[in-house]
């Protein structure tokens, strides 16, 4: 086991897969000599050359559309979108094309492609470098959506995503890149898509979350534990497909549920989680399902007090947990 930051784990995941499989290529803006604006692809250009690590024109639809064509013709492309906020010009290629190609060709064609993009706030990135847009992709059959929260998962999920036969959107919380360190197993391991992970066991409140919020929830759960409340923190990891069985098991076990996400709540991942709990756990609930998420404003503002007010933190989560504990 080695200690790695979240971004180092992602870089190693790409590097190891590129060493293992000559079909894997990386393409995106500044991914070449510079190694990406966050340095996620640092060293890949030097090791694999410009044929496999491709600086593209500044054109997101092209990055994804070319990756689709390359995947159809036998490669395993990893397309990097510099910030998730700038994925929108590529949404037609993702939703109209990548998501539908297997279905519309009756299994004749498939798109084994990964689209990586950093997302999330708390980094003074303001409206257009802070968004959490995962929900819009989770709505689309044919796509898979993954958000790792730890270095171990980041590497293992990324490797699984690269080997997956279908398009996977791999969203990396940019605040985690250098903030989060952890043990990463040696050797070739993958973390299967579609499986949630119980990060902390408990029987009083089930907390469903993902991404950076996982770490905040763990801190809040720690604090409640000191007062004798045992929270079960479930890191969803895979947002599409959701691990329905894991959600149902933890919700039934605890009888109280708090759903926590950074994105605003309307028609979001946690709308779906709450619906699953409502459908499958009704008789087991001791309290109404509670959700905690971002406010219904169009983006994360720049000025520190505004950003602070937008973002969830351990204190806000703890307060929601205590309220639920007292119900």
């Amino acid at each position: 086991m080695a200690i790695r930051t979240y971004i180092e784990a992602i870089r190693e995941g790409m590097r190891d897969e590129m060493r293992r499989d000559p079909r894997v290529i990386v393409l995106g803006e500044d991914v070449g000599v510079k190694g990406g604006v966050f340095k996620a692809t640092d060293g890949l250009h030097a090791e694999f050359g410009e044929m496999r690590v491709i600086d593209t024109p500044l054109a997101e639809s092209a990055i994804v559309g070319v990756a689709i064509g390359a995947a159809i013709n036998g490669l395993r492309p990893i397309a990097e979108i510099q910030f998730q906020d700038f994925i929108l010009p590529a949404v037609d290629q993702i939703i109209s094309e990548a998501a539908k190609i297997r279905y519309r060709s009756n299994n004749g064609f498939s798109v084994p492609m990964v689209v990586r993009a950093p997302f999330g706030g708390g980094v003074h990135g303001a409206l257009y470098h802070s968004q959490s847009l995962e929900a819009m992709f989770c709505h689309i059959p044919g796509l898979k959506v993954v958000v790792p929260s730890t270095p171990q998962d980041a590497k293992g999920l990324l490797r699984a995503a690269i080997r997956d036969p279908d398009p996977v959107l791999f969203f990396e919380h940019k605040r985690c890149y250098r903030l989060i360190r952890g043990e990463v197993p040696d050797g070739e391991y993958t973390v299967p898509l579609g499986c949630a992970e119980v990060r902390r066991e408990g029987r009083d409140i089930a907390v469903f979350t993902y991404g950076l919020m996982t770490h905040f929830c763990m801190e809040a759960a720690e604090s409640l534990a000191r007062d004798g409340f045992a929270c079960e923190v479930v890191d969803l990891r895979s947002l599409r497909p959701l691990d329905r069985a894991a959600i149902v098991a933890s919700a039934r076990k605890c009888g109280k549920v708090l759903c926590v996400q950074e994105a605003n709540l309307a028609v979001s991942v946690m709308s779906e989680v709450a619906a699953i709990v409502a459908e499958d756990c009704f008789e087991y609930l001791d309290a109404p399902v509670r959700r905690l998420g971002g406010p219904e404003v169009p983006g994360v503002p720049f000025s520190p007090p505004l950003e602070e007010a937008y973002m969830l933190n351990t204190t806000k989560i703890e307060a929601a947990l205590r309220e639920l504990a007292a119900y």
Partner: protein
Amino acid sequence: MAVMRPETSPGSDLDAELLLTMYRHMVRARVLDERMWVLNRQGRAPFVISCQGHEAAQVGMAMALRPGYDWIAPYYRDLALTLVLGMTPRDHLLALLARAADPNSGGRQMPAHYGYRPLNIITGGSPVATQVLHAAGAALASRVRGEDAVAYTSLGEGSTSEGDFHEGLNFAAVHQLPLICVVENNGFAISVPWSKQGHTKDVADRALGYGMPGVIVDGLDPVASYHAMTEAVARARRGEGPTLIEAKVARLTPHSSDDDDRPYKTREAVAEEKAQDCVLRFRRVLEQRGVLSPGDAEEVRAQCMREVDRAQEEAENSPLPSPESLHLHVYGDQ
């Protein structure tokens, strides 16, 4: 770099067998296309979109490609192109009638959404111009593997207003990919004329902005189309990058079976285009050259009719998809 307008005298320098093959392909596509309209008017097929008036360009271009080796990202008018590459009237009638055995999509997509794995014909959706990027990506993959396959893509002139057209050609030019992009310019995007899509005289003028050759070809002439494509393909295979070809064609039908072209196209313009019908024109050329007799032409048409009759019967007797199949093939690891 300037836009090229190759001079051609139709049929002059190709051997008779090749010319006859071209003619047969054109007639076969026309007969099939006309049959689709009949089925539509009989209420047996809800939707038809036509290649009539585009056959010469498509047949000429397709004959310069290597079927099953090169990568093809076509658009909805490319019926004749797909037939030359190896798809059959039966394949297309199965799609028209939304049968389970439709090799494009198993009856999931509207007709004319081509896709056929064995021939590297990449499945297309309905949004226009997205396929230009897929062709660029396919070209990139061939290059990464060191193969000399080329990628072909096509679209209408109106669709060149889309961002993906620009992004695709720019990408292909920057990376000098073996891509040939064919614009089948029939003058209208449904009802909107070229003058409201672009402010250049010709679509091919846009090639200059990408630093690639732009070629204008008489798309009513299969031989000229064949030559233009042969040259572009050779350049691409040699690693000399992409080409934009504009084929000037005619749309001999309304946009689709759901369109009525009377509000935006004068009857004189329609009559003029019909007088220039590429199938009739090529027939006259071949007759003048002594390659084809009137009797031969009738026999070609009769053969095509028999093939299409058989294909229609097979398609009509082929089962519809089962409702349970709705859920299949969303993911590969289902």
